[in-house]
């Protein structure tokens, strides 16, 4: 356990230090959300209706943006070799890295959600519904995105390939995340149903993500 705790501590520390990318994600989230009214017009009623979808898309893109570095940084400086060789199971090490990434890059997105909700004229219920669904849903984005990040490392292609690999995987999360927030705002469906499915997707991703990422790292390093 000390090994995993050390890995989490290290990754968070690096993300928060100079040159780390933890806050870039929030800035990107802000910027994407601010762009939306330029594209669809400043009509507040329309923005209110689209608000949850805009916030979810922004959070999705922001968490994807920072995922790129999840394994590449460690691969470039040789740390990944040692992590693969370590006594901690690689699956757990991957899960630890994803958790650290979510704590450093995912949580700030959720913290920024109320402010952006205000700008999109969402009321308190809607904002808290979006924040709650993001809290449950963004870990799923990180843990499924991790698979793409691991593949991108072993294929020596980052960036765009990662986006193409990961975006389709994140569609279910997006569907149920937005559905749950909409249900809380307008009904008529109950909030519970899509929200439970969202929780289920997250739980499944906690299992599948680390195993798939570890498998692709194990067979793809050279």
């Amino acid at each position, binding site marked *: 356990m*000390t*090994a995993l*705790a*050390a*890995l989490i*501590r*290290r990754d968070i*520390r*690096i993300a928060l*230090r*100079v*040159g*780390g990318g933890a806050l870039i994600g929030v800035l990107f989230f802000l910027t994407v959300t601010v762009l939306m009214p330029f594209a669809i017009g400043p009509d507040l009623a329309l923005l209110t209706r689209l608000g949850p979808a805009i916030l979810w898309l922004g959070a999705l893109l922001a968490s994807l943006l920072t995922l790129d570095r999840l394994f590449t940084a460690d691969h*470039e*400086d*040789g*740390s990944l*070799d*040692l*992590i*693969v*060789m*370590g*006594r*901690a199971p690689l699956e757990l090490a991957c899960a630890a890295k994803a958790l650290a990434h979510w704590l450093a890059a995912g949580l700030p997105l959720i913290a920024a959600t109320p402010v952006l909700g205000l700008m999109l004229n969402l009321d308190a219920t809607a904002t808290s519904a979006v924040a709650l669904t993001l809290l449950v849903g963004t870990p799923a984005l990180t843990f499924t995105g991790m698979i793409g990040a691991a593949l991108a490392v072993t294929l020596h292609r980052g960036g765009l390939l990662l986006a193409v690999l990961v975006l389709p995987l994140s569609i279910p999360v997006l569907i149920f995340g937005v559905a749950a927030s909409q249900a809380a705002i307008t009904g008529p469906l109950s909030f519970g149903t899509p929200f439970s499915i969202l929780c289920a997707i997250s739980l499944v991703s906690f299992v599948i993500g680390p195993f798939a990422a570890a498998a692709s790292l194990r*067979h793809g*390093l*050279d």
Partner: protein
Amino acid sequence: MRLSGRQIDCIRGGRGVFSGLDFEASSGEVLAVVGPNGSGKTSLLRLIAGLLVPAGGSVDLEGGEAELTLPEQSHYLGHRDALKPALSVHENLAFWRDFLGGAAGDLSQCLKAVGLTHATRLPAAYLSAGQRRRLSIARLLAVRRPVWLLDEPTSALDTAGQDLFTGIMRDHLASGGIIIAATHAPLGIDARELRMGTSA
């Protein structure tokens, strides 16, 4: 303790790097892997470290801890230093001590052994290439592993650093360790040679 490889084939990118390779090293022995560029020295080390899968043959460690695999009992010192420039020298070393696990040494002793005591609190970003290499070597001391896999370990080191490292390797051998080193430069220790790129 005895590390041995039998009839190892290595294929990378569709190209056979080497085949039918045998080697063996026992406690207290250095196996110096020599050969021209592209003969597969690095591939052999990564293969022993479990980072490459051999196309044929096997590598075994006899007399090690039964519950642990060979990579879990090995240190790998590659071309890249596995250091994070944003973390301090001490933080870097402490992380690897905690992550790699097993019997650990005293960190300030390790840093003293490689001559980095003065830099303990400084960010690793400020270190020169030779100092970064010294810090990687400190990792070998921070956690005890019987098998050391070293890829050009002395490349960035100055003469003093090389002498220092020779001493560190001697201590490791004296305590029953095994060293496999890919190298162009002489290590300063009597070593059994494994010549690559001639058999094929």
